[in-house]
């Protein structure tokens, strides 16, 4: 069976797909790729289903060797990928031979790279997904981050090869300062005008207490009415922005808890959540509010672009 071998894992490399749905009512987080756009692009290149399992590498990439001839694609953060020491392009279908080594020289932009292999990573499904959930140690490979010597089996390659290259205009630019668009949240009315103004006009820095579960921001406090930071524990959507009592917003990401007890001021729109996933501690952002109609139009537009791209195979 073709497989890939992890020579060195990088900083934090896990197996992720498009997430684990259907179990949130039991408190099971969705998990999956932080940047679902890059996951899908990598899979389109490799000729896989858009939801197939890939590697998600964080800040510092892994080194991987191949047991068989296969195809591989790297999307998302540019960590200067190279094969046998020779630079190779991002967002492109790459042919590799048995014994080749894929490595990364260092981070140039973004935060998370997605590495798709032809056939996808074929670890066992756990509750309908191959995503790794580190906190409960399930999914992926033994529910953990990868380590040297791990062997990852690849699935069956489809007849149809992937496309050769992702068109440049689809690939987002990753900046260390971004405007992130939001729609208004269920408890926006619980905040003082001044708090809302701070939220929408000032700059917030992503703190180093940020991970796959959530991004903790620091900036001008978002002030609640009187003492109303707490709500009755309720559902959290991808990109929900909660504000605890200290007024510093937290954006809930892929490994978010299914429910939370802080006022939900806003929601990052789906499209921009993929951009946010490429931001790292120390980067800064500003929020801009748009309407729900606009946000959903953007989702539909992206869906159409990706569907067209996948059809080109």
């Amino acid at each position, binding site marked *: 069976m073709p497989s890939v071998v992890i020579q060195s894992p990088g900083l934090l490399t896990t197996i992720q797909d498009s997430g684990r*749905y*259907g*179990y*949130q*009512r*039991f*408190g*099971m*987080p*969705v998990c999956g790729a932080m940047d679902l756009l890059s996951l899908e692009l990598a899979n389109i290149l490799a000729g896989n289903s858009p939801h197939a399992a890939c590697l998600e590498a964080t800040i510092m990439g892994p080194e991987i060797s191949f047991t068989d001839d296969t195809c591989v694609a790297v999307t998302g953060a540019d960590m200067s990928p190279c094969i046998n020491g020779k630079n190779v392009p991002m967002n492109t279908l790459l042919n590799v031979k048995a014994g080749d080594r894929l490595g990364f020289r260092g981070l140039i932009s973004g935060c998370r790279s997605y590495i798709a292999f032809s056939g996808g990573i074929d670890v066992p499904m*756990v*509750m309908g997904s191959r995503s790794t959930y580190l*906190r*409960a140690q*399930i999914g992926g490979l033994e529910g953990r981050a990868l380590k040297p010597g791990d062997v990852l089996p690849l699935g069956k390659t489809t007849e149809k090869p992937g496309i050769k290259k992702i068109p440049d205009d689809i690939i987002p630019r990753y900046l260390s300062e971004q405007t992130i668009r939001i*729609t208004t*949240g*269920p408890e926006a009315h619980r905040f003082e005008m001044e708090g809302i103004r701070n939220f929408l006009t000032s700059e917030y820095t992503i703190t180093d207490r940020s991970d796959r579960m959530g991004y903790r921001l620091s900036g001008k406090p978002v002030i609640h009415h009187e003492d109303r930071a707490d709500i*009755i*524990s*309720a*559902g*959290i*959507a*991808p*990109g*929900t922005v909660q504000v605890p009592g200290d007024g510093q917003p937290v954006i809930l990401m892929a490994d978010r*808890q*299914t*429910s939370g007890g802080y006022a*939900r001021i806003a*929601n*990052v*729109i*789906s499209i921009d959540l993929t951009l946010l996933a490429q931001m790292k501690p120390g980067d800064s952002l500003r929020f801009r509010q748009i309407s*729900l*109609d606009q*946000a*959903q139009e953007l*989702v*539909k537009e992206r*869906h159409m672009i990706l569907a067209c791209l996948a059809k080109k195979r």
Partner: protein
Amino acid sequence: MLKHIPSGDSAFIIKAGDEISEEINGTIRKLLIRLENEKIEGVIDFIPSFNELMICYDPSVAGYRILLERLKSCETEIETAELPEAWVVNVPVHYGGDYGPDLQFVANHNSLSPEDVIRIHHSKDYLVYMLGFTPGFCYLGGMDQRIATPRRQTPRTKIPAGAVGIADIQTGIYPIDSPGGWQLIGKTPLRLFSPDQKPEFLFRAGDYIQFFPVTEEEYIYIDKMVNEGTYHINRTKRQ
């Protein structure tokens, strides 16, 4: 009255009230059953909580206006609809000792004997209002005020799966090993979350949990049966 509130571009909330009550929570569970039976196109998941139902959907399949219309058409007479009969799940607990290192503290805090705390804790069943926080964690309602105890000042770095604890007026069971600040009074050998078994979760919202005390020998015996997959969990219809 049900309120409909969008929560981002891919989730919708139906809110049934502003407080924690069995009645409001019952409405949420009835809504979940009805909406799930409808198999609404574009809906990918549900998160029921105390007083809300979050509906997660794919906006490239159905926009919020279409979804809202579909949701509303399913909600007629929901508040007067019957809930299915509830199950009572009997949960063995060995109280005190190494299994419940804070039992004495809870007793002292409330000027009770450890035996009183145990008796009060298992003298009634508890409604599972919702699950959340960690996979399989149940938010239980209705613990007796007489054994209420604040969280530990210094949380423990590792609490084993199965630990039964008290935090203020709540009681609960840790489903997976995790850090936490609850006062631990006992431990159950049952597995609340087993990702490689069906069903993966022991409880669902709407169940009732009835704790019953077991000796250490019984605990060890049940634990062995649970590991071998031969323990039969006692579930009864609630009267």
